[in-house]
């Protein structure tokens, strides 16, 4: 199968959504087990965000991005060598209850039926709502890294504002690229090390990550980048474009001039597909995010739907690939195929790779200012809905994000709630003194990404039997 027919749905054993580490690994393993596999990805090329542009790296850029990035190349090579049908530039915009996937590719829609669906859609950056964060020139830290990976472009005056491993990694990579950030405004609140210490023994099992983290921090400090700790009351100033960032650190207000401010508060599972499918989700108090409820083999509450990688809960690229393989093996076994590799070895490797997580999660949990932003802060960037307006809607009786959405249009813009979802829920939960599980999340509806009306009008989908 290399072509999708507009006339009739193509059938496969396994559809894998997302070509990052989890998706590539799952696809290769399922294919090796003898299953027909389609790997669907929105991007132009393999790798997802973590291994973005992995097939077109140059020695110079590899040197900057480091061995953990370069490690992704072998995964992409194994995918290319496999029998997997890889469909780049393909956006899954709906999945119906009878395992029919509606896809958009190069301006037209078609259908794919899969016995099993592996959701490997990875992570998105946790929103960092603060006054001024909608100004032009303000990006995420992840955006800076994508610029570097995909285009070899760096911002010379960038100020990084936030916390977490990715921020330090990007700072270190910028230094290696010869353009250190202008400053780092660290938002990790005081006392976090004490909260994280109970997890340190376990984390030492994953000492490679700790060592890497410490070495990145040393590299940043060694390069003379000013670092401001435990920053609060952060706001970005500017008229058309960001001009400066103001914050309080160690009791003193600082303003740093820059028109490129990059924000980061860690990453969280991308829930769009599992929410569309109405899979059960649970709040993870350690990761501060919703995760789909999975059995030991990555299976969701919805029949035939599995999740692998950061979409299942944040574990990083290596864990994502391990989990992708495990999920593929579980499916292979269910379909009566011999496993091409040993499950217990992968499980042991997964446990070892994840050992550092509880420590990192305690250390870098989002600061209160991002969980419950000040009233005037825009939370929904698309519809420009403020935290205060959300609180008012709660006071009017709105019990959760879907009623708030219908009152205020938060989450109704083109991003479909991807950016604001978690903060909207957390503001409601705080206001109602309810748990995140009681509060819930936006209901996600098709299309998963906006689609031109003409494309839908030209689409001739099969009638589906709704379960």
């Amino acid at each position, binding site marked *: 199968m290399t072509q999708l027919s507009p006339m009739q749905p193509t059938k496969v054993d396994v559809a894998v959504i997302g070509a990052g580490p989890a998706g590539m690994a799952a696809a290769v393993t399922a294919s090796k087990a003898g299953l027909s596999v389609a790997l669907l990805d929105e991007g132009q090329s393999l790798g997802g965000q973590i291994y973005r542009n992995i097939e077109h790296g140059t020695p110079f850029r590899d040197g900057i991005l480091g061995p953990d990035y370069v490690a992704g190349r072998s995964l992409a090579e194994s995918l290319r060598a496999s029998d997997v049908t890889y469909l780049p530039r393909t956006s899954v915009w*709906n999945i*119906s*209850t009878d395992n*029919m996937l*509606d896809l958009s590719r190069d301006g037209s829609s078609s*259908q794919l039926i899969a016995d099993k669906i592996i959701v490997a859609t990875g992570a998105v950056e946790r929103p960092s709502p603060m006054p001024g964060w909608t100004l032009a020139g303000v990006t995420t830290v992840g955006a800076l890294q994508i610029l570097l990976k995909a285009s070899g472009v760096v911002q010379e005056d960038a100020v990084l504002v936030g916390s977490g491993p990715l921020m330090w990694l990007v700072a270190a990579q910028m230094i290696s690229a010869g353009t250190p950030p202008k400053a780092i405004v660290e938002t990790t609140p005081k006392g976090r090390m004490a909260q994280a210490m109970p997890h340190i023994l376990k984390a030492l099992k994953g000492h490679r990550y700790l060592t890497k983290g410490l070495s990145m921090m040393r590299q940043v400090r060694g390069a003379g980048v000013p670092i401001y700790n435990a920053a609060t009351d952060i706001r970005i100033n500017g008229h058309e474009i960001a001009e400066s960032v103001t914050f309080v650190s160690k009791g003193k207000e600082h303003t740093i001039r820059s028109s490129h401010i990059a924000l980061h508060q860690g990453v969280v599972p991308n829930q769009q597909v599992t929410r569309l499918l109405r899979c059960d989700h649970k709040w993870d108090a350690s990761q501060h995010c919703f995760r789909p409820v999975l059995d030991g083999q990555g299976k969701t509450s919805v029949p035939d739907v599995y999740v692998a990688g950061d979409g299942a809960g944040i574990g990083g690229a290596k864990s994502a690939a391990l989990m992708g393989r495990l999920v593929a093996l579980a499916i292979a076994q269910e379909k009566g195929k011999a496993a091409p590799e040993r499950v217990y070895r992968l499980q042991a490797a997964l446990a070892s790779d994840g050992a550092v997580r509880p420590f990192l999660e305690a250390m870098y949990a989002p600061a209160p200012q991002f969980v419950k932003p000040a009233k005037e802060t825009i939370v929904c960037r698309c519809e420009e809905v403020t935290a205060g307006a959300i609180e008012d*809607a709660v006071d*009017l*009786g*709105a*019990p*959760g*994000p*879907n*009623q708030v959405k*219908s*009152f205020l*249009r938060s989450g*109704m*813009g*083109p991003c*479909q709630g991807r950016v604001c979802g978690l903060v909207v829920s957390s503001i409601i939960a705080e206001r109602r003194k309810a748990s995140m599980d009681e*509060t*819930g999340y936006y*209901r996600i*509806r*098709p*299309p998963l990404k*906006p*689609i*031109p*009306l*003409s494309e*839908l*009008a030209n*689409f*001739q*989908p*099969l*009638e*589906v039997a*709704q379960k």
Partner: protein
Amino acid sequence: MSASVDTIVVGGGLVGSAVAWGLARAGETVTVIDEGDIALRASRGNFGLVWVQTKGKNLFDYARWSRRSADLWPEFAELLEEHSGVNPDYHKAGGVHLCLSEEELDQARALNNRMHNVNGALGYGAEILDRKQLDEMIPGLGPDVVGGSYGQHDGHTSPLRLLRGLHGGLKSMGATYASDGPVLSVAKDGEGYVAKTASSTYRGAKIVLAAGHGNKALGQSLGLDIPIHPEKGQILVTERVDPFLNMPTHVIRQTDEGTVMMGDSHEHTGYSDRSTAPVISDLARNAVRCFPILSKLKIVRSWGAVRILSPDGAPIYQESETCKGAFSVNCHSGVTLAGAHAMALAPMIAAGKLDPDFEIFSARRFHGQTH
């Protein structure tokens, strides 16, 4: 347990909220019991038409009631904004039922002829327009549009702002809104009524069932027969564009925010509210036929909602014969009828009795004259 109020309203959607708003305005103490965040909510899925033409072709009293509501809407919208600070974006712009074939146009013409005298001296207010006349009113129509029926009493509103305005108004008038539903049971309780949710018990001298499909089961315990069935409708909405369409059509309307809504599907798929690709593509094709200028716009979201339909499509309003002071309100036109529910029906319920000519809206109409 909460103190007893004058009236418990079960259901906080557009129907329950409009009735409760009217009751509160009439000076009653009111408790509205609503479900939580995820529920079958026809109100959240509404298209937003305040629509008179074509309504009540099987029951002329329903045609007159819809018209009465449209006549009340301007004052209602004003009062709503006054009480809540929320403008429901109501526009009495007139509305057009677009016809894509001569046959459809003939049917519209026949319907208008049949209905022309339904409001007596008030006039029906709908007329058939040919394509040339339509072009003078509406830009960008596609070649397949042959004409349409223009209704001068038709208009549109934002159902979401309407709901928010009603909830805001309820709050400002001191009504209690509880979202710990669903109501699991209702029962006669001495001189009044009791409604129970999983966590609370509510008491009131009267009770109004406005729980959409939930009414069917609840009504049984109060001697109310409520023969309603589900019918799914799906809707698409685009990204925002500059205002181009200043009046609603029955399948496409532009909101005040600039998004364009496309709807009018009818499916019998039980209580499922999922959007499905076949209907999404049908709606898209129809929209492109009506307005080819929308082709390049992106659909940002789709949704399904489940209409509450009686056997003849008209509302059911009824007081229980065995439980005086227990009323049921059932309809699929919660937006169109919001004006009448708030300003005409609620005062009757506040007075404890539906008008005698409301007998026509009781479910008894489906059972011949049996009592």
